[in-house]
């Protein structure tokens, strides 16, 4: 709790140099002649949840993927850790939209973890040596019981938690979540945000989350960025949601 308060105060500070933070500077992305992102600047502090909102096709997913390095872009990503020493590329965890996951293949949760965590080919070697670690990873998202399930047999919420557990091993500096809860039922939703809050506090992690659930973001986010090909406005939830430009896009939110 103390950490959260500390970082809330920190967020008001414009300069990043003495704090753990990730800076997105002048990000632009074009596909051919189509400009998807134009000069996007964001500061994301550790221990904070930044909600990325915006209309469909605003470039939210593209921004996450370009931060990841999966989309060619101009501009730079800077990371500074709490001691101000480690500068360079942060370790990034990524949770894609689970709807974009191909779960038709015969792959178990354990297989997925082994493929991501080990160099030994899953089809040949036993996964025994990794089991304890994977169990711990899954325990973090309260899903140990899913370890031997087939991916295709998981519910939306379960798959989302498994993907989150995977994104947290190794523990990243920056966690990117692309609409993590679309299509997840109410209980799954609550559990997911509980886990996120816990992470934010315990692991002091910076989280960027794309969401269409604005009331929920008003409750959980520390910072909201309204994106429509460029940053329209950003700030704390109250500020952004009462902004006339937000209202023009989404109607009255809170």
């Amino acid at each position, binding site marked *: 709790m103390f950490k959260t308060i500390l970082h809330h105060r920190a967020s008001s500070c414009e300069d990043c140099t003495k704090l753990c933070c990730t800076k997105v500077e002048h990000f632009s992305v074009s*596909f051919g002649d189509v400009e998807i992102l134009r000069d996007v600047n964001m500061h994301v502090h550790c221990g904070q949840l930044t909600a990325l909102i915006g209309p469909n096709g605003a470039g939210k997913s593209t921004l996450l993927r370009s931060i990841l390095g999966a989309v060619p872009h101009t501009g730079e990503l800077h990371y500074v850790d709490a001691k101000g020493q480690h500068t360079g590329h942060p370790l990034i965890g990524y949770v894609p939209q689970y709807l974009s996951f191909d779960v038709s293949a015969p*792959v*178990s949760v354990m297989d997925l973890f082994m493929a991501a965590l080990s160099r030994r*080919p*899953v*089809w040949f070697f036993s996964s025994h040596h990794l089991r304890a670690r994977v169990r711990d990873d899954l325990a973090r998202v309260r899903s140990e019981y899913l370890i031997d399930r087939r991916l295709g047999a998981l519910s939306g919420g379960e798959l989302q938690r498994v993907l989150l557990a995977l994104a947290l091993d190794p523990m990243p500096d920056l966690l990117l979540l692309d609409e993590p809860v679309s299509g997840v039922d109410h209980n799954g939703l609550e559990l997911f945000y509980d886990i996120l809050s816990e992470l934010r506090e315990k692991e002091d992690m910076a989280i960027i989350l794309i969401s269409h659930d604005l009331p929920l973001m008003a409750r959980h986010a520390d910072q909201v960025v309204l994106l429509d090909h460029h940053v329209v406005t950003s700030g704390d939830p109250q500020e952004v949601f009462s902004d006339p430009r937000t209202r023009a896009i989404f109607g009255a939110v809170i």
Partner: protein
Amino acid sequence: MGDMLHYEFMQNAFIAVLLVTPLFGLLSTMVVSNKMAFFADSLGHGAFTGIAVGAIVGLVSPRVSLAIFSVAFAVAITWIKTHSRASTDTVIGVFSSTAIAIGLMIMSHGGGFNKYSSFLIGDILAITKSDIVALAVVFVAVVLIWGVLFNRLLILSINAPFAMSRGISTFWVECAFASLVAVVVSISIEWVGILIINSLLVLPAAAARNVTNDVKSYTIVSVLIAMASGVAGLTIAYESDMAAGATIVTCAAVMFFVTMIMRARFIK
């Protein structure tokens, strides 16, 4: 069946089947998971042109030039599909049609197409002792590379941006996989035949998916189905005097339909 192994050409054919079908079983798991059935089909077409080009260039042995051409063809498709905005379907379609057209132009030059027609349906009895040595080398190489490549390919098949977040280079992994498939296609096209080679890259895994829930059993069942189809197909083809490649593929297709019926019992 013991009878057929009296002949040396049948012994060779038998060993070749046992060496190559497991490779099809392995590779097909990721061809199917990565939705590359159409790509695998185009590799057969690429190999067709490779044979024709090899015949006119004739710098090295036809088989080596075929393998080189097929790998270049596979890498070119992968490169264009990564760097162009056209859909994967379209890119593969364009390459595939171009390859088959150029191959036909070269082969039909001067009315000499007939000497190539054996490539269409394949001839397993043409396998010699030295071919088997080459197959054994390819077998070991492919299995080793598959050990290095597999985990990355598996993650890529599930979600590409997620794979990139784990430091996996989509392009290089796809290139390596495409080249591996191209090599296996080019060493077996002579006896399986261009018309049906694609089926061997799809059917074993498609059947295995019907009855398995995890990666190990998926791989093992796919390899076993490929090998069983190979042995059964070769035997039936010998007994009934039919094209071996086609008979093997038909056996694999039967396996697919049988597993499809059993699906509900196995899938958790």
